[in-house]
């Protein structure tokens, strides 16, 4: 599989491996019309970029929620996992979308709406977690301090 040129919000035009391409058949909530994304390492670990291939200006910052919540599990049922072609939760790659306000120390992660990826099939979906512990805005730095 080859590479292609992608227009990205954080890095401009860059060469991307086809294997970084992800299909979101249902889009993301509020962005249902956007289906094609690429997953990029961000310049700062532990962040990633989920860049839309259809609208360059749309890019989400992602984080592995277990970085600051080691106990995180999106609590998905077998029928949820089946929607992205998975059978077991261990096969899934879980991410949370990060919101970074003007004061970045107040950045939050959305653990209630996890972005879950089948990395073999390169299919993703945003789910609504039914676990009531998970909220839309978890303060990352506070929870990271508590976890360390």
């Amino acid at each position: 599989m080859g590479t292609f040129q992608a227009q990205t919000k954080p890095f401009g035009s860059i060469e991307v491996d086809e294997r970084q391409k992800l299909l979101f058949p249902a889009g993301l909530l509020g962005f249902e019309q956007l289906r094609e994304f690429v997953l990029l390492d961000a310049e700062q670990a532990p962040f990633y970029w989920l860049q839309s291939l259809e609208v360059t200006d749309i890019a989400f910052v992602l984080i592995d929620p277990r970085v600051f919540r080691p106990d995180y599990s999106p609590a998905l049922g077998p029928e949820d996992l089946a929607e992205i072609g998975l059978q077991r939760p261990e096969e899934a790659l879980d991410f949370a979308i990060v919101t970074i306000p003007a004061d970045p120390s107040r950045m939050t992660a959305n653990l209630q709406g996890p972005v879950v990826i089948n990395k073999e099939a390169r299919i993703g979906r945003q789910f609504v977690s039914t676990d009531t512990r998970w909220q839309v805005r978890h303060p990352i730095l506070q929870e990271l301090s508590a976890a360390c």
Partner: protein
Amino acid sequence: MLILSRKIDERIMIGDQIEISIVDIRGDQVKIGIRAPGHIKVYRQEVYQAIQQENIEAARSAPGVLPSLDKLLDKKPPG
């Protein structure tokens, strides 16, 4: 929109697999029971809207240059 009147313990069927029951009514609050197959997703509408809103906010606020978590943590007093 179809509007039906129901009393406590009365039910509504949607198709042959989704059953909605009125469990309790107190003042302006109604307790509703929902029985549905696993592939039917049931959530409070505000949860769905909150995630949509947060996605829009996340896309709008994504900065050109990401902050360093390590540096932010160093700046923060413990706790």
